[in-house]
């Protein structure tokens, strides 16, 4: 067995089958196929993360606003109640004399 001649035979130039070039050019002109489902899943995941993240951020802002409003209401009512009690006590003291 002659290796050299075997290689020459295996690597010899062959003409492509008839119509090969036309078929390749026709495939190039075909419209591109839709994105692969894997990319769709990634895009959906990013969108879902953005929506859920946005919703969570909104909830957090709402919670902070509510807590701040609660603190301010309690402070305001504390001040109002304290002033009213001070007046009541004063009136009571005058009444007891």
């Amino acid at each position: 067995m002659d290796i050299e001649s075997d290689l020459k035979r295996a690597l010899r130039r062959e003409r492509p089958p008839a119509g090969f070039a036309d078929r390749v050019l026709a495939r190039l002109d075909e419209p591109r196929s839709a994105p692969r489902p894997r990319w769709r899943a990634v895009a959906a995941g990013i969108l879902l993360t953005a929506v859920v993240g946005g919703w969570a951020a909104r909830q957090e802002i709402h919670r902070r606003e509510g807590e701040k409003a609660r603190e301010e209401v309690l402070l305001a009512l504390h001040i109002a109640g304290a002033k009213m009690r001070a007046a009541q006590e004063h009136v009571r003291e005058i009444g007891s004399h």
Partner: protein
Amino acid sequence: MRKLILALATLVLAAPVWAQRINLDFPGLEEKARETVDVTIDGDLLKIAAKFLDGRNPDESAARDIVSKLEGIYVRSYTFSKEGEYDRSIVTRVREQLGPNWKKIVRVTSRTRENVEIYVDARGDGKTVRGLVIIASEPRELTLVNLVGPVDIDKLASLEGQFGIPRMSVKERQ
């Protein structure tokens, strides 16, 4: 024409609320004060605040009862470093805004303690309090409170405790 009628009706309906709302903002006070408390809560923010009050806590539950009926809470409280740092005529200017519906229920004057005046808006049947104004003045402190809407005075006076009020709510000048 319908729009005009609607606008006029809105104005007429809103007028009582405006009447209960008193201007408590006087230029220059905050700049002079060492400590300032400035609370303005009305509209949707008041409803949100009511939702955040803890119904299991007795103080907060009572506060929620009061707040749920109110349309606005306005408080300005100023503490000064020295006596006579604020214009005493502010008290008169607040008093002058009160219309004929406003009745004085308490006026305490003291040489040693704070002076307190409490006014209520008792329009309608005369029994329901539709608004409250408190003017408390001391040589180094001035507190103005305006509650707009039905107010349960007894419940307000009975509120005890500090409510865990955070220190950050008070603006302090160095």
